[in-house]
């Protein structure tokens, strides 16, 4: 299992569009990806659940990746967060 933390810098937080793109990215991975923040946890592929976490700017989230491609997947996801959120 790989994990990393990231502090959201986007003004609105994890909003619909990046959450949607994230769900798409996560779907093509072999690994399972979970986001955790504010005491809530959701699988990255589940768009409404991720949005339902209501993650705002300045919140630290923990991303865990577990599966065959976890090494590369974690790297890819970290880059995604930095670029989009």
């Amino acid at each position: 299992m790989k994990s990393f933390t990231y502090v959201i810098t986007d003004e609105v937080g994890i909003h619909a569009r990046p959450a949607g793109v994230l769900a798409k990215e996560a779907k093509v991975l072999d690994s399972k990806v979970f986001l955790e923040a504010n005491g809530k946890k959701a699988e990255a592929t589940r768009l409404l659940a991720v949005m339902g976490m209501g993650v705002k700017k300045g919140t630290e989230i923990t991303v865990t990746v577990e599966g065959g491609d976890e090494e590369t997947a974690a790297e890819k996801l970290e880059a995604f967060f930095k670029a989009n959120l």
Partner: protein
Amino acid sequence: MERYTGKSIVKGIAIGRILFYSKGENPVERGKVEDCAAEIERYEAAKEQAAKELDRLYQKALKEVGEVNAAVFEVHAMMLEDEDFNDSVRNIINSQQVNAEYAVSATGDNFSRMFSEMEDDYFQARAADVIDISERLVSVLEGKERSGYLGEEPVIVVAHDLAPSETVQMDKEKLLAFVTEYGSANSHTAILARTMNIPALIGVPIQKEWNGKLAIVDGYSGTLYLEPGEKILKLMRVKMEEDEKSAELLQQLKGKESVTKDGRKVHLYANIGSVSDMVSVFSNDAEGIGLFRSEFLYLEKEDYPSEEELFQAYKSVAEMMAGKKVIIRTLDIGADKQVGYFHMEKEENPAMGYRAIRLCLDRPEVFKTQLRAVFRASVFGNVSVMYPMIISVDEVRKIKELVEEVKKELRAEGIAYKDVEQGIMIETPAAALISDLLASEVDFFSVGTNDLIQYTLAIDRQNARLDAHYDAHHPAVLRLLRMVVENGHKGGCWVGICGELGADTSLTEEFLRMGVDELSVSPSRVLSVRKEIRRTDLSVLKTDENV
């Protein structure tokens, strides 16, 4: 006529007939099904169809209203694929043996409730997206078309609420304004209205009986006028024309210098009455604030405003103008502006009475509070101060003594301030006639033409019967003005005009020929005056007829 007030999302005026837009709210019926697998297949087919529709809407929106507004359909398509949403629909069909319409609608309600109960405005507004998706699916399942047909004539669209797909489907050519009961400043409808720049109000209690009635949407005050009278119609039409004109001017003149053809630069500033006027200062591209009336802080209160309240207001304007000039005029109360807690006696002739600097010098504690606030604000921008209703050198000296006291106090308290430019309003014939003497006392003059005209011509401007005699272009007024400019320049002062006459474009050239350095006008007039300045050529000689 009836009037309703809501919250304005986009400013502007629209006049037209109301179209009450309803979703045709027939509730989804719950029906038993025998073959759950077939029902789920029906659902999958509807989902595919909905995805196609969303793609079409995305393409349409992209073309008509741009990426920002189109993105919503991309998001909808993603939500449509959400596993939890789909699991829930299938589960309801299977476990309750019900029709797909009911399963979709129940799922939509549940997920939208999840969002509407969240704290953050943005996430709350997403409830509408979920409802929009479930309604789209239900329409497909029921074989209904969702259309945005608005009829032949442009209309004001009035609705309890509008889903993004509804607004995007509407024919943009036929849309004058939006008025809704629900919705938020973050909703897609609000974003769309902003993009299209049409007025929009929310929070107005809607009645479907309004359909077809004539109405005015005033996005400046947040008012909806239903079946308006002739008077208000006329007023609003004038406002609309002004808006159109200034929009046109803005396109041509925003960011351009206020400079004549032969290269004379003029400072073109705006008059404001409160911090909320700053919006129009920016949208009309004023180069500074030539008159910040400070009465509003007193008029809107039940008691004297504190130094801190005054300071905060001055500071925020100074900061917003970011180094551009902000001229704060000290309190001009009395005459037609009365405040209860000042306990002033009734006067026979208030325009010539106990007002402005007369009152301030008589009540130094009130005046010094204001001066302290001004000097404290000075370190946050480029602040100047000016004093109204001056008639003598003696008054100016008394003011300067008080200013020195205030500065001394601030120093003693260790509070930072900058030395600010001090000026006076020239609005009495007395001040104009001794402007040579006054010039050596101050840094600038600003001519308040409204009072100067009234006092010079002895015409009460509150008396409508005298309107015919109120000649703003009277040679006596123009002679005084010329005199003030000449005396000011000789004594090292720059000279501006901050009265209504400053915005009179038939006089702009004459003012510039007199040597006026600054014009401060109401924000909505800035660009018209700039246009006039830019087409003036002072190198072309002209004979003076009047003065």
